């Protein structure tokens, strides 16, 4: 098998001190991986509860209160982003040319756009006192999409070493 061609961005990344550090310290990679797993659980837990409520389950939980978990989800996402960048810096070309990684990044962007749609088309109107937001189709659709897209992100992440 021929070696895949180095992308210009990969060539640049491999000149950075962070790349050298990640390559020389296997423990750093394992540490970032553990943080990535911990961040994943906070992100997944907070969003799952909000999305289940949006879908019409857990009716005794006020969505207005659950929405206060969003800052935890954003904080956890920041951890995911930073540790994810560390993985990329350790072996950039491997990730950039990997189909699972490419799909995962597309799904992350779509999940982010979907979260914005939920915030502005569902939560803000609800907060402003618009009645019956909970029964709107857009509420169910954005909530269901959120679960599906984040599950897709997790699945693609798991498959990166295999595809």
């Amino acid at each position, binding site marked *: 098998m021929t070696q895949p061609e180095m992308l210009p961005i990969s060539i640049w990344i491999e000149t950075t001190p962070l790349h050298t550090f990640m390559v020389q310290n296997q423990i750093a990679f394992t540490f970032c991986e553990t943080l990535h797993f911990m961040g994943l*659980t906070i992100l*997944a837990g907070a969003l799952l509860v909000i999305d289940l409520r949006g879908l019409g389950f857990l009716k005794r*939980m006020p969505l207005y209160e659950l929405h206060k978990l969003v800052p935890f989800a954003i904080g956890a996402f920041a951890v995911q982003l930073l540790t994810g960048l560390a993985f990329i810096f350790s072996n950039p070309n491997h990730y950039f040319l990997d189909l699972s990684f490419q799909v995962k990044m597309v799904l992350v962007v779509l999940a982010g756009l979907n979260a914005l749609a939920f915030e502005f088309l569902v939560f803000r109107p609800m907060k402003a006192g618009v009645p019956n937001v909970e029964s709107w189709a857009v509420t169910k659709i954005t909530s269901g999409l959120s679960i599906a897209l984040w599950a897709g992100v997790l699945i693609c992440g798991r498959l990166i070493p295999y595809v």
Partner: protein
Amino acid sequence: MFNWLENNPIANWVASSSWAYPFLLTAHGLGMAVVVGLTAVIALRILGFPRRAPLGAYKGLMGYLLAGFLVNAGSGAVLFLADPVALAANLSFQIKMASIVVGVIVLWRMHVKVLVPAAAAEAPVAQGSVAADGVSIFAPPRSAKALAIAAVLIWWLSVIVSGRLVAYLSQAA
């Protein structure tokens, strides 16, 4: 002596199918997200975030948490049978299994000592609409906060960390 164990049908299936291993790991990852994620959400509420969400309603999450746990127990059992002899001798794996037993006990106590009483105390409120002023919301005892922190730390520090190490040490072996 362990020959029959190493050649069990599940081990052969996982070894010969190129999709079995990634599929099982993916199911294990999704289950982990549900179990640890919901534990973290319940723990955050017991610690006071968000303070005005009725704590008793969180009892409704236990069913989802149990479903996630069963997915992980099932996928974990098959992953174990794929390589039973090496895993049973692996220290990280032993620590992980012991941690799961402790984690289940802590979660069960959180359910019985905090969520069930909270749901009972808030039940009259739940019949109508949830009180907007939050006055009738169950306040967890201080010991509940220790349980909440313990539950998250056990899943994070023991199960995830030792789970990572199981993967690395098995590769090295």
